[in-house]
Structure formats: C-alpha cells, structure tokens
C-alpha cells in the first residue's frame, strides 16, 4: 500500500514538476514589470536584456544550432530598425506593419547571402556577413535624403498601440518578452524536429550529413532566413523603444559581436544561453553605469573583454552548462531556479518516449 502510494506520488510529481516550473516561471515573468514599476531604471534594464536576448537568440539559431558563424547580424538588426522607422516617419505606416516588412526584407537578404556563400566551403559566409553589414552602414550614412545620414532618425513620440509607442514601460516589457520568446521556443523546437536534427548534424559534420541524404545547403539557408527575420523584428522593437536610430550603431560591428558574445557567455546552442548571457551583460552594464558614472566608454569595452576572457578560460562551453554542473554535483539532483533548469536541460533532455 505504502509502495503504491509512493510510486503514484512519484509519477505525479514527475509530471507535475515541469508544469509547476513553467507555471511559476510564467507567473514571475508576468508579475515582474509590476514589481519593478517604481524602479524604472531596473525595468529598463530588463527590457533591454530581453531585447538583446531576442537578437542574440536569433543569432544562436543560426550560429549555435547551425554552426553558421555570422559576424554581421547587425545588417538584419539595422534593416529592421530602419525599415519600420522610415515607413513610419515618411509614410505614416504603423511600426507593427513595418516590423513585418523589415522581417521580410531581412529574410530576403539572409536568403541571398545564404544561397551564394553557404554553398562554399571556408570562411566566405562569415566574411560576407561582415561585408554586408558594413555596406549597409555606408548606404545608411550616405543616402542622406532618405536616412538623414549619420545624424540618425528620431521616432516621433505619439503614444498609441498602433504606433507601438506607450507612456508606460510595461507594454514595452511585454512586447520584448514575446519577441524574446520567439527564438527561445524555436530553439526548443529544433531539439525535437527533423529540421533541427538535420541542422545540428550539419553543424557537427556536413559531409556525413550529406551522406545521409540531407540537403545541407537548403537547411542552412532555411535557418539563416529564420534567424535574419527575427533579428530584424528585434531591430524594429529597438527603434521603437529607444526612439533614436543611427547607422553607426544599428549596423555596427559592435552590435553583431554583441549577439555572438552574449550567446557564448550563456551557452552556445542552448535555448536559454543567449537570454542568460544578455541578462548577465546588460545587468553588468547597468551596474557599471551606477558605479562609474561618467567614465563610460572604455570601461564598457573592458568589462566585455574581461567577461569574455573569463568565460573562455574557465567555462568555454558557457555559463549555463557550468551552473548546471555545479548544481548537479552539489545537490545530486534537480536544482531550484526552475527557469534556468528547464531551459538548460534541453541539451540533455531525453523525453519519456526517448527509449521508444
């Protein structure tokens, strides 16, 4: 009798644990902006962390899962920012629609870069992405009658849902959250779909993937298109939230590298990696600004550099696998921090049906 009850409880808790984890995480994410309502500075940090988590998450789909080491994702980010802003400022088209148009344009560009460079072996893809971002920056700087050049464009502040502009930070928070969830959920889907398995196989060994009948170019171009489109969506949101865009930032190598570094700090090829990395970097950024008011510039770059050196030296696979390992050896079981755990465990997740 005792045994039966224990067994039953165990089984129930095995089913309940993930549900409870996801439920409490959702509750926390919904409550968070209201808890931070009076600390707008921190809410702002959270929103930016979600935004960069979305961009880095989009990069991670191609870079982490597909091994496509793009160093020019700022191209797609900038297209998203500029498309929606120009359509809004010049033609009065809603940024929501602009967001969609930006995503489509970025997808087309990603497709073009992909079908040309992803057939070739060697570093052509990475180099091409850098070049494209630089070219777009030069265009945005010099096409002054449309883009106002290096002076940048200010998004006019007309609050209203249709204009994706609000007088409270809370709506921005929820938009950022949804945008951040897109690459996160897609990454989880990759772990349990044919497309995802093919992608990871190509990342690990392209020739072996071809031998199994995988059309490797199509799969790689496919993930690049998806990644580009989501990066552009993040770009549009950035423009709407920060309300000023300028070519030297939006198309910059810094923005491209930021997506790569955040992902590497959190964990490459893990759903939660880029989000975690973004929160670490953005959080530290805020902290540094608090501590060292006025001495920004170089300090920011130094922080980045130090963080990256530490990660590469001590936890080359990223912070999430490292934390997981620590919790596992320390407690001999599931860690608390259900958000971290549920996301990170997808790397080693074996579904109950895994045994077949």
């Amino acid at each position, binding site marked *: 009798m005792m045994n039966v009850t224990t067994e039953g409880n165990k089984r129930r808790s095995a089913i309940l644990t993930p549900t409870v984890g996801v439920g409490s995480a959702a509750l926390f994410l919904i409550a968070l902006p209201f808890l931070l309502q009076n600390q707008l500075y921190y809410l702002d940090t959270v929103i930016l962390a979600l935004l960069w988590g979305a961009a880095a998450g989009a990069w991670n789909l191609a870079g982490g899962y597909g091994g496509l080491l793009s160093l020019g994702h700022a191209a797609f980010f900038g297209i998203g920012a500029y498309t929606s802003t120009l359509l809004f400022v010049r033609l009065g088209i809603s940024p929501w629609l602009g967001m969609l148009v930006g995503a489509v344009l970025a997808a087309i560009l990603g497709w073009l870069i992909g079908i040309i460079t992803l057939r070739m072996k060697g570093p052509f893809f990475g180099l091409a992405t850098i070049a494209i971002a630089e070219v777009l920056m030069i265009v945005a700087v010099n096409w002054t009658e449309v883009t106002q050049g290096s002076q940048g464009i200010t998004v006019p502040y007309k609050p209203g849902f249709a204009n994706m502009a609000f007088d409270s930070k809370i709506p921005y928070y929820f938009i950022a959250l949804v945008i951040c969830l897109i690459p996160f959920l897609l990454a989880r889907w990759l772990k*349990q*779909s*044919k497309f995802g*398995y*093919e992608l*990871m*196989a190509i*990342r*690990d*060994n392209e*020739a*072996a*993937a*071809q*031998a*199994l*009948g*995988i*059309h*490797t170019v199509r799969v790689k171009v496919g993930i690049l298109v998806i990644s580009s489109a989501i990066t552009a969506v993040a770009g549009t949101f950035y423009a709407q939230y920060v309300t000023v865009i300028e070519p030297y930032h939006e198309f910059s190598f810094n923005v491209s590298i930021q997506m790569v570094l955040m992902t590497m700090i959190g964990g490459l*090829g893990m759903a939660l990696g880029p989000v975690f990395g973004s929160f670490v970097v953005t959080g530290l950024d805020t902290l540094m600004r608090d501590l060292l008011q006025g001495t920004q510039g170089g300090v920011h770059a130094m922080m980045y550099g130090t963080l990256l050196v530490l990660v590469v030296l001590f936890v080359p696979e990223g912070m999430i696998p490292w934390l997981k390992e620590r919790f596992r050896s320390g407690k001999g079981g599931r860690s608390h921090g259900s958000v971290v755990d549920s996301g990170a465990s997808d790397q080693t997740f*074996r579904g109950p*049906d*895994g*045994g*077949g």
Partner: protein
Amino acid sequence: MLTVEHLTKRFGGLTAVDDVSFTVEEGDFLGIIGPNGAGKTTLFHLITGFLPTDAGEVWFKGKAITGKKAYQISRLGMTRTFQITKPFGQLDVMENVVVAALQQSPALREARERAEEVLRFVGLGAYLHHSVTHLPIGLKKKLELAKALATRPSLLFLDEVMGGLSPDEVRDLMDVLRKVQETGVTLVMIEHVLQAITELTQTLLVLHHGALLAHGATVDVIRDPEVVDAYLGEVEPDAVH
C-alpha cells in the same frame, strides 16, 4: 544494380582513378583492394557524389547518377561510410542515428524506434545515450555503419570499416556485415583486412595506380599472380583461404 563506365578523375598531373569500369549485381558483396594511394577512396567519392568526375558515367538502378549531389544519391538508396569516422560530435549515439532514420521516417517517435533497432542490430544497444566523442574506435566504426543502415540503403559502400580494430572486433563486425547482407543490402567494401575480404566478399576488384588490375570472383582474383605481385606481396593465397 550499379554500373560504372570509364570513370576517371585527375588531380593535376595525377590520374587518381583511371578509366575504371565495373558492375555490381543486386545481392552481391564486392570487395575493393589495392595498395595505399591506388584510388579506392577516390572511386567511392566519385560514385557517391562527393567529388565531381572528369569523365565516365555511373548508373544506379538504371538511372544515370553522374553529376548528382551526394544527398540526392543517398536518397536514391545508395549511401556510404567514411574511412575516418564522422560522428555528429555534439549529439549522442542515439541522436546520431536518429538523424539518419529521420530521412526515411520524418516522425521523431518512429525515427527513434528505428534508430534503437539499428543500434541493437550492430551491437551498440548498450551505448544509446553515450557521448560519441568518447567512444573507442571499434564502436565509432559501428556507429558509422548504424548511421548508414538507418537510411535503409539498398547499396552500401563501406570504406575500411575494419581499420584499426582488434581481431575480436573484426570477427564481431564480420558477423554484423553478414547479417546486413542477409537483409538484402548489396555491399561494396574497401578493406585491407584480408580475412574480411576472403570470408565475406563474393567478387573482388583490384585497383593499382588508379586503374583496374583485376575483377572477378574473389577466390580467383586472390590467386591471380599479377594481383599477388602488385598488392598481396608475399602472402600465400592458400594460407589465407
């Protein structure tokens, strides 16, 4: 089933595969031998679409497949293993084979079942969730075979699957290959392990400096003085048979 005609590949001044023609019948087990650098692996690359040919034609099941890409050829039912194993390093043993099984059964659950079945078939049933990077060479070779089998090939090219294995592992893998042949798969095997060649293959093809030196029933070819001279050297043909 497979017809190769006048296949030629040059690398600069070197003719790696020189006007090679042969056929493989359904149900056959063909062995390919030859000294290092004789063009055996290049021949595999050409037939399975990993290298473009300079001249010649390849027909598979009556269709010309010359110039087709490796993935297209694989989808037609002709696949291969690699001499230097190419596991998907960040996936575990099971997932490695799931990738292959998904090409035939796109539903993940079915692919998992198929993958497990194939892994048990080759003797990797105890290693389903092991990391592939830490597998010993013998098991890596078996994994290579399992991946190829999971695509349900009708013609399978094996590039030195016995290389680096202990005598026990060779015997074990030979049993597996016999079972593979029994399931109706036609096999072509590059091999340096003579025991595997003599005991498994029905026909044998000898390459020398890229050209076909001999082709016929294994028992006859292995005694051919020219072959003995070029490749087998001092080995007594009677001793191995």
